[in-house]
């Protein structure tokens, strides 16, 4: 190894450390020169702040969990339907999935809220939010499920059927376990998108982390600081998930990786 290569190698191991140190120095300088006002950051040192924001985070996570369970259930059913149904019924399922996926999620949330309010079913914006998030994510998950099922070699099903398994048995014992294993990285990615999208409940006036943040900055007058902290909270939840998703993906043999993706393309 040449001296330069050795130096480069040495540096590459500390690249993140050095980058982190540069960021830290910039932040300290910003405080020292008064560009960042310490006064506006001080509320974040109070335990009461974190109890308050924690409450909002709890709502956000509850909404995400509820929407996740609903979307997984309906997504699985719709995905199987799309992959297996032929004829007019199959077209209807496909069209519904494609249309939902082609619509901005915020539009779905607003329309669901208005419909629920007009029909008098509920006044609760959180429920409207969970329903809206579930409609969109069911469609996305259905597409992931379809791709997972269709990615299996046709011989798998044929072998199971010729061994005397019924169609439901084949799905349950042969197709779904393998398809699910292939889908997990994409599903975890979609969970990240779902968690990010819960912030849109803010716009349909449902309480969640961002709305709690608003009450907080209205009191202390520190908008920018609150947005940064909320961004960091979301990052702290989503970053481990994205690492997890990538690890799952790279563990699979390359021919078992799905080309299908959630809302945004994952590049690996």
């Amino acid at each position, binding site marked *: 190894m040449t001296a330069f290569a050795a130096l*480069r190698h040495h*540096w*590459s*191991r*500390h*690249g*993140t450390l*050095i*980058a*982190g140190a*540069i960021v830290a120095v910039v932040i300290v300088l910003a405080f020292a020169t008064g560009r960042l006002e310490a006064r506006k950051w001080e509320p974040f040192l109070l335990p009461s702040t974190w109890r308050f924001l924690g409450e909002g985070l709890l709502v956000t996570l509850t909404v995400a969990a509820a929407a996740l369970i609903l979307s997984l259930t309906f997504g699985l059913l719709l995905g199987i339907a799309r992959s297996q149904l032929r004829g007019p019924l199959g077209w209807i399922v496909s069209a519904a999935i*494609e*249309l939902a*996926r*082609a*619509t*901005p*999620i*915020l*539009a779905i949330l*607003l*329309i669901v809220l*208005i419909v629920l309010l*007009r029909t008098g079913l509920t006044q609760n914006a959180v429920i409207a939010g969970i329903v809206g998030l579930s409609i969109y994510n069911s469609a996305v998950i259905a597409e992931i499920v379809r791709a997972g099922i269709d990615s299996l070699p046709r011989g798998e099903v044929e072998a199971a059927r010729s061994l005397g398994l019924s169609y439901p048995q084949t799905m349950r014992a042969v197709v779904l376990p393998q398809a699910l294993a292939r889908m997990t990285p994409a599903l975890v990615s979609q969970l*990240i998108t779902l968690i*990010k*999208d*819960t*912030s*849109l409940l*803010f*716009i349909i006036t449902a309480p969640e982390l*961002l709305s709690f943040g608003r009450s907080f900055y209205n009191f202390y007058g520190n*908008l*920018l600081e609150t*947005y*940064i902290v*909320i*961004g960091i909270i*979301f*990052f702290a939840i*989503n*970053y481990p998930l*994205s690492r997890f998703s990538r690890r799952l993906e790279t563990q699979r043999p390359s021919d078992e990786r799905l*080309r299908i*993706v959630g*809302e*945004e*393309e*994952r*590049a*690996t």
Partner: protein
Amino acid sequence: MGLFGGLDANSQLFIQGYFTTITLTVAALGSALVIGTVAASARVWGGPVVQSFVRGYVEFFRNTPLLVQLLFYAVLLAPANLNITRDPMVAAIIGLSIYTGAYVTEVVRSGIISVDPRQIEAARSLGLSQLEALRFVVLPQAIRTVIPPLGNLSIALVKNTAIAGGIAATDLLKVAGIIESRTGGDFTPYIAILVAYWTLTLPLAWAVSRLERRLAFAR
């Protein structure tokens, strides 16, 4: 008034909203491609510290809600802070570009590393110049990897422009709300904007799946 003088005020507003959504998409896509290409090149060929910064950029902006990012820029650019502009369109374009740019970075990076460097050596030893090797060997393959995911990102971007309404940009979705309140609760504008979004997203989705099949075959 002007080009759409013959239409009533609501239809004019609707058409303006449609063009606002297209403007946001095109402007953000253009700058996201520039940001993504520069960042991906830095990520692949830059030093370790530069690489860490790009990784930090990609991870932070992909794992944070777009709405929080847009709200942040809107407040940051406002008179109370940097005093640059009150215009939500500027904040929306900046926010959408930086957010989408993080995704583009990963896509372009995967395009660059999808081509085996030994292919360049092979092309060079066959007598091609470095530039010719890039032009005839690397680029055709890299573009094939990159185009379908970039298409998907464009679709996601069209849909994400709806969030700009959250910082008071008058995009399609916002326009539906305005017309609804003007007409005392008419629901038709919401159906109209759904169709309007589909005129943008569905042809794109169709084109992407077509391209994906063609490029997969040609590989």
